[in-house]
């Protein structure tokens, strides 16, 4: 057997190219219109040649890869055409491979030409062709994968339009399935957070930098698999099934139920969004039934209901099974709390702490790290706790949450007033992981959660400063409500500062920790910008990070250092004598998004110089104040404006504090009422 003639039919290849030559021609034209001129534009406008921003990054390749197979294989969907092609003396395999070959020639040719032009420009302006190679690889991968996906869709369908829709479905279905499954599980399964791996990021490699990594190997594997599956499908395809929506009878039922399930759960999510009613069974049925019947009719090519009832019953049973499994936790997922003896460690992430300390993590050196990987790198340090006492404390918190919150969750009567959340990752001795995520109101768990927050292990795990990795501090800034601007503490002893912070963190109590979380950088705070080298998956990454510390009364050592430093920099504070008055507005109770109008429970104008000075002094040292004799710890919001003429905004100085009532200095507190009103936010104007 001559392999060349077995695999390729010259006549088929030539006829494909002769008939569809205009497809690569348009592709080429679009590249010439939209890609290459960008480089010229960049140079002409003086922006310089930036080759990284001149390409379509595979979009056109993707589009043409998507559309071309529909044209090449459209003959399968017409009775006379399929009879003509298959009446000719060629084997099915030969015909199929020849079509694929001609299709890929037509796709690759514009990519190669575009790549050569970009490469030439790259050589001329930058002295290398790296980008051109990456560009060709990206376009090639996108085009081939889209081409094989649509080919697959065209083969399983007997109708070109349906084939395109299937192809589109295959492209979006994985994302749809992951997103909706996550949405459904997080609203119905207590403790479910999200899939641990970034599945969507793994499925969809976007743009040139992601495609040009090892991850793209799975795309190549998929292309090869699709190619062989398509050959097999082409060989077994019943050619008389042209005009059918699904050309393979066993797949008709798969199509019907897939459509019904997708639309059913889509209906559920929409219904939930609109009504806020979580009806996992009933809300799935209307759109699910409609889709099931439509798919049934499409399969039958007739507006018939005969026989559909059976499938509706099966569909209902399926949905009921899902509902029962989730509602009664038949898998035991929700109630599973590992025993300490099973555990190697626990990695707890309470996102309050994360949001305070990890928010500015960025990569500034080494290989580019993308958003999906970025999440993992949020926690590059081993944050696991291993000692039995701490693990027992965490398990106890877990059990407590289960006992209190789960009944409400299952009754769809959750407490919307949550203000904290925790993610627990149990690392079992057998190498498996169990991840759970809970939202709760922190004050409801004071009794069981306090020991954990005060635990040394917790602090080690959650404060990057404590993690033992050597840090190189770049700069430290300090902010105070009465500083004209935040100032850089340029000459402060950084080692002493780091030591002081460590000691203060170690002495944080549960209450002061809560204050730290809730302060939102109001009052006085310092920002430490540093770099550190983190080992992750066998590589060392250098991170630049900024940590904010609100200097509450627990930060005594740090505060002392700052005070000493500021004693020599008193000129950086505003001078209250420069101002004519102070306006205090506290406890906003009304806010209108449209008009921007705000109303405050307390408003006061202070014109007396002595009182103004008292407010200034109170603000300057506000972080260390507490009146233990006052029980009122309600969080209060105070806006203080030092004004020059009482009217104009020119030269004003604004300060903001957000603290418990008993920590607001008496010089300011005296203007506040003891209780604050409920705050309302409006999207319309007040009547």
């Amino acid at each position, binding site marked *: 057997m001559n392999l060349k003639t077995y695999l390729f039919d010259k006549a088929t290849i*030539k006829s494909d190219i*002769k008939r569809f030559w205009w497809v690569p021609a348009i592709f080429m034209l679009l590249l010439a219109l939209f890609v290459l001129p960008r480089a010229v534009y960049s140079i002409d406008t003086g922006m310089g040649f930036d080759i990284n921003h001149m390409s379509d990054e595979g979009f056109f390749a993707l589009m043409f890869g998507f559309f071309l197979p529909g044209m090449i294989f459209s003959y399968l969907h017409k009775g006379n055409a399929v*009879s*003509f092609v298959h*009446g000719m*003396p*060629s*084997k099915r395999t030969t015909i199929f491979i020849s079509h694929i070959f001609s299709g890929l020639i037509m796709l690759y040719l514009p990519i190669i030409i575009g790549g050569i032009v970009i490469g030439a420009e790259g050589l001329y302006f930058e002295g290398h062709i790296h980008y051109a190679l990456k560009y060709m690889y990206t376009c090639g991968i996108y085009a081939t994968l889209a081409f094989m996906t649509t080919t697959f869709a065209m083969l399983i369908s007997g109708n070109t339009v349906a084939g395109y829709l299937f192809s589109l479905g295959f492209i979006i279905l994985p994302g749809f399935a992951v997103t909706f499954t996550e949405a459904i599980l997080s609203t119905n399964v207590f403790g479910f957070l999200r899939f641990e791996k970034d599945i969507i990021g793994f499925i969809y490699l976007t743009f040139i930098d992601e495609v040009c990594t090892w991850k793209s190997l799975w795309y190549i594997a998929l292309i090869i698999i699709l190619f062989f599956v398509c050959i097999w499908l082409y060989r077994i395809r019943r050619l008389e099934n042209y005009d059918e929506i699904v050309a393979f009878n066993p797949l008709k039922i798969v199509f019907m139920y897939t459509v019904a399930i997708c639309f059913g759960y889509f209906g559920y999510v929409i219904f939930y969004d609109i009504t806020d009613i979580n009806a996992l069974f009933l809300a799935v049925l209307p759109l699910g039934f409609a889709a099931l019947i439509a798919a049934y009719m499409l399969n039958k090519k007739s507006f018939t209901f005969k026989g559909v009832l059976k499938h509706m019953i099966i569909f209902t049973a399926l949905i009921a099974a899902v509902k029962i499994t989730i509602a009664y936790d038949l898998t035991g997922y929700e109630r599973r709390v590992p025993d300490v003896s099973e555990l190697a460690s626990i990695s707890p992430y309470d996102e309050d702490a994360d949001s305070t300390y990890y928010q500015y993590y960025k990569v500034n050196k080494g290989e580019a790290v993308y958003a999906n990987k970025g999440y993992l790198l949020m926690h590059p340090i081993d944050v696991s706790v291993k000692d039995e006492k701490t693990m027992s404390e965490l398990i106890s918190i877990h059990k407590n949450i289960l006992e209190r919150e789960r009944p409400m969750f299952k009754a769809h009567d959750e407490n919307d007033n949550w203000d904290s959340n925790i993610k627990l990752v149990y690392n079992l001795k057998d190498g498996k992981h169990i991840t759970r995520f809970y939202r709760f109101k922190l004050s409801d768990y004071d009794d069981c959660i306090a020991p954990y927050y005060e635990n040394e292990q917790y602090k080690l795990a959650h404060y990057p400063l404590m993690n033992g990795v050597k840090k190189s501090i770049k700069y430290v800034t300090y902010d105070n409500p009465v500083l004209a601007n935040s100032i850089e503490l340029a000459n402060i002893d950084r080692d002493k500062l780091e030591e002081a912070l460590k000691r203060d963190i170690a002495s944080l109590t549960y209450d002061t920790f809560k204050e730290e979380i809730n302060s939102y950088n109001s009052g006085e705070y310092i920002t430490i910008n540093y770099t550190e080298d983190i080992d992750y998956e066998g590589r060392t990454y250098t991170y630049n990070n900024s940590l904010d510390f609100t200097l509450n009364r627990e930060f005594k050592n740090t505060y002392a250092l700052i005070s000493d430093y500021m004693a020599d920099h008193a000129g950086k504070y505003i001078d209250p004598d420069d101002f004519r008055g102070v306006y205090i507005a506290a406890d906003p109770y009304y806010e209108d998004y449209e008009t921007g109008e705000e109303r405050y429970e307390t408003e006061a104008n202070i014109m007396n110089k002595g009182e103004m000075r008292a407010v200034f002094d109170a603000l300057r040292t506000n972080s260390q104040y507490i009146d233990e004799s006052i029980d009122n710890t309600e969080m209060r919001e105070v806006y203080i404006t030092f004004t020059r003429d009482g009217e104009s905004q020119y030269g004003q100085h604004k300060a903001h504090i957000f603290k418990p009532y008993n920590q607001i200095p008496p010089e300011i507190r005296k203007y506040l009422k003891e209780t604050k009103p409920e705050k309302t936010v409006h999207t319309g104007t007040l009547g």
Partner: protein
Amino acid sequence: MTDYDVMIKARNVTKSFDGFKALDALDLTVRKGSVYGLIGPNGAGKTTFIKSLMGIYRTDGGNISVMGEGVYENTPLKQKIIYISDDLFFFTTYSVKEMAKYYAEVYKSFDWEIFEKLGSIFKIDVKRKCRRLSKGMQKQVAFWLGICTKPEVMVLDEPVDGLDPVMRRNTWAILLQEVAERGMTVLVSSHNLRELEDVCDNVGIMFNGKVVLEKSLDDVKGEIHKLQIAFEGGAMPDELAKELNILHSSKFGSVQTCIVKGDAEGIKKVCGAHSPLICDILPLTLEEIFIYELGGMGYEFENILI
């Protein structure tokens, strides 16, 4: 008939579409160098059989062979077979010449000399796009290109449908010339029984997915006759009616016309014994044979007045 004489052989062929049996244990034999007319009512399964024969459809059971070999995925064998379907297909942008080049690349035996010669008969501008030609002209092009491949077997589905009378004659003439000169075998499916009658050596009548009758045209014609008979007193004697194998009977005045199975001499002898006033035995056209044969199977002609 020896296997050597057989060009196409189908045995026990079955093919179903969604539970509907389009071919039901079909048997069919076509002799080498003959013209075989495949006739049958609409939906009898003729096109399904032809597409199965061409290896376009895969059969569910049984086997079909051409020259002793299976056709499905048999490229060398398909080089020798040309199929011209009723519902023709040409590549959208292709002219006649471009289609000819395509055929020449696909069929190794394509003969450009024949193409030029036939060009003077069909008189179609080879630069014209095939899709722009009329249905009749497209049929001519398909036939023209098919003949140029010098096939050993030609399978035609309604080959002259849409052709004008002159072109019909030309087409049949070319076909018969190929049969006579090269011994080409032709399987032709058509509803134009009048024309088939002139060209076919054998006929097969299909009904409900089976070949219910397969004989040489001469044998078929020798087995069924139209009898016009009249008796004194008007009515045909009951004994005679029982003796004859009457498929259909009608009476106009005193003359009774019957479609009778059997050889002409035998029928004449039986009738003569009852001393008829008139007794004429006439040959049946293929169309009449078709109607009366299938009438006996429940596929009857109705005199419908609306």
